[in-house]
């Protein structure tokens, strides 16, 4: 009986799905970040306008990366749009795996995309992914604690000042850490943070001949500074803290400062989730006194079309809709200006209502202060600020960041970690033929 019913249900399901297949449907792979989830809520409007149905495949970031990489390299054709980042876009674009976005409509106004984002999502001047939202990193600090400490945060602080402020705000008795920073292993987690910190101390991953540079004094100085700062004024167990862990600490009022992604600004100033929403100030990411590069990165979550999709036109229509000025206005109307996807379009920052959002200007300044084509003090052969845009980087940087995290946790010395990082990077790069 059960089998009969099951068969009946299966047949019915097949019929239903066959009927649905007649309408045009595009499949989009994406991550579970707040702005993406919001976009899913508005897709009905897109379907109403165009008649194109949208199916979402939402996955965890690392699963998504593996999933879409497998599909695109084998031309599996499972997805018509993929959500990818600034790291993958130029590499995949160069490999011919993505449809160039060089014929977007006039009203889309491609020139309105922030230049930093457009450059980072292009290869050889051709745009391969449209930014849905973009981010840099900046200092978020507690204005009330700063005031109590008798200090004033400059617009562009140095690492020396950050250390001084962390010392002044650190209050173990009241469970307040002077500063919270990422230490978690992973190229996109602690690896990204220590790479930009290295940049701001004058360090770099490779010299112009692709020789690893972890044996240079700048790296040692950056790492020693970071570890001393965190051991003195950071939270316990910081070696396993990533974005989410620090967000949670900051929202509960347990950090004096937090240097991380600009998108966090809308979370920490949201009174529904954050206990310190009214006491958050923003400043540019720091640098070592006298070093011209700051510790701010550049990242975008962008929508790209895999080459070989059968539904290129429908996919383009969706991308134009989701990354348009109209979409931003749609979200602003329904959820307020603080909740629109940030960091993608110049016009957004010219909108008077958006200029009133407390973190808008600092987000823009941080994005503009980041140049992926000139990320370090000394010249480098690569593009990318918190990453090196070569396919080997994700693997290498994950191993290196594991060694660093082990040093943060006190399992090995900083010197040992740097020696291993140098050895790992040299070996992997030689194996890759550099």
């Amino acid at each position, binding site marked *: 009986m059960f089998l009969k019913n099951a068969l009946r249900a299966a047949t019915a399901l097949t019929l239903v799905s066959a009927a649905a297949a007649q309408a045009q449907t595009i499949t989009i792979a994406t991550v579970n970040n*707040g702005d993406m989830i919001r976009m899913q809520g508005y897709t009905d409007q897109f379907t109403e306008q165009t008649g194109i149905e949208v199916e979402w495949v939402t996955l965890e970031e690392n699963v998504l990366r593996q999933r879409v990489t497998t599909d695109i390299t*084998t031309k599996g054709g499972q997805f018509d749009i993929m959500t990818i980042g600034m790291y993958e876009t130029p590499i995949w674009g160069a490999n011919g795996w993505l449809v160039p976005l060089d014929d977007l409509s006039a009203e889309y106004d491609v020139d309105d995309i922030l230049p930093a984002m457009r450059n980072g999502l292009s290869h050889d001047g051709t745009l391969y992914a449209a930014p849905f939202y973009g981010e840099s990193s900046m200092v978020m600090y507690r204005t009330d604690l700063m005031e109590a400490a008798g200090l004033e945060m400059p617009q562009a602080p140095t690492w020396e000042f950050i250390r001084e402020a962390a010392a002044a705000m650190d209050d173990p008795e009241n469970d307040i850490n002077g500063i919270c920073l990422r230490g978690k292993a992973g190229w996109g987690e602690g690896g990204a943070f220590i790479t930009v910190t290295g940049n701001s101390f004058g360090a770099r991953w490779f010299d112009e001949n692709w020789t690893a540079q972890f044996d240079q004094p700048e790296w040692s100085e950056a790492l020693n500074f970071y570890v001393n700062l965190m051991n003195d004024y950071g939270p316990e167990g910081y070696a396993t803290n990533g974005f989410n862990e620090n967000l949670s600490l900051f929202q509960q009022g347990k950090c004096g400062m937090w240097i991380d992604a600009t998108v966090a600004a809308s979370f920490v100033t949201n009174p529904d989730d954050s206990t310190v929403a009214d006491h958050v100030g923003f400043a540019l990411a720091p640098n070592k006194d006298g070093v011209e590069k700051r510790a701010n990165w550049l990242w975008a979550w962008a929508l790209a079309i895999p080459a070989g999709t059968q539904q290129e036109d429908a996919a383009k229509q969706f991308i134009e809709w989701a990354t348009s000025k109209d979409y931003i206005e749609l979200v602003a109307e329904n959820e307020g200006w603080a909740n629109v996807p940030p960091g993608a379009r110049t016009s957004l920052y010219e909108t008077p209502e958006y200029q009133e959002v407390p973190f808008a200007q600092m987000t823009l300044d941080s994005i503009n202060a980041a140049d992926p084509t000139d990320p370090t003090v000394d010249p480098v052969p690569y593009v990318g600020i918190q990453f090196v845009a070569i396919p080997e980087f994700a693997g290498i940087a994950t191993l290196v960041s594991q060694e660093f995290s082990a040093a943060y946790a006190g399992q090995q010395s900083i010197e040992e970690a740097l020696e291993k990082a140098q050895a790992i990077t040299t070996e992997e790069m030689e194996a890759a033929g550099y």
Partner: protein
Amino acid sequence: MARAVTPQRKLVNTGVAWAVGLLIFFPILWTILTSFKTEAQAINDPPLFLFFDWTLENYTIVQERSNYMRFLWNSVIIAGGSTILGILIAVPAAWSMAFVPSRRTKDILLWMLSTKMLPAVGVLYPIYLLFIQLGLLDSRAGLVVVLMLINLPIIVWMLYTYFREIPGEILEAARMDGAELRQEILYILTPMAIPGIASTLLLNFILAWNEAFWTLNLTAVDAAPLTAFIASYSSPEGLFFAKLSAASTMAIAPILILGWFSQKQLVRGLTFGAVK
């Protein structure tokens, strides 16, 4: 004769068993508790145990955002299909290995088990390419076959151990009475091995239900089971632990309930031999 057990010793044993049980169950309990908290309560420090305002908000949101029934149905079909298909192949295989072993049977058994030592990701590309060629990507049929193949060594091994404990003479007697091979397996062997087959079925259903590498990598929309449902609530930039917990609770609930109801069979099948 059973050993005499003093009441004190019994008390200690019971206490230890409960403590170990609770320790193992605690992560699941914590997930369930978190699913009834708000996002802010979920990350509260110190953690809130029982005294918070219980809310169903997360379940409502998860229900609205995802088509839970579609994921559930896919999980049932994929886990059920692969288990049944596996048993159909494994019963005759285990019969031949247990009752008419050849010179190479031991080697084959070991070789089968060795396939479990290969990291799945090592064959991701070949399987993916095969699936493209056969048009099986994002289909339940494809996953049924793959999960069956992955669990087959375990099914065969389990059945083989149960069958070995059945005296071959019983089967011989059946043959003497004129039973054909089919009858021998269906009417003599299977009924005697029911507890073993039942626990093999259950264990493999659970393994297939929880399988999260192939089910994530070979599906997109149509065939995505509950593992994909959970994965869609994990976030690198944003705190959604309460919603993730609600999704996880919904995904593990069916298998947890099934496990509870079939506990007796499972334990009996795993600890007792076929004819003891």
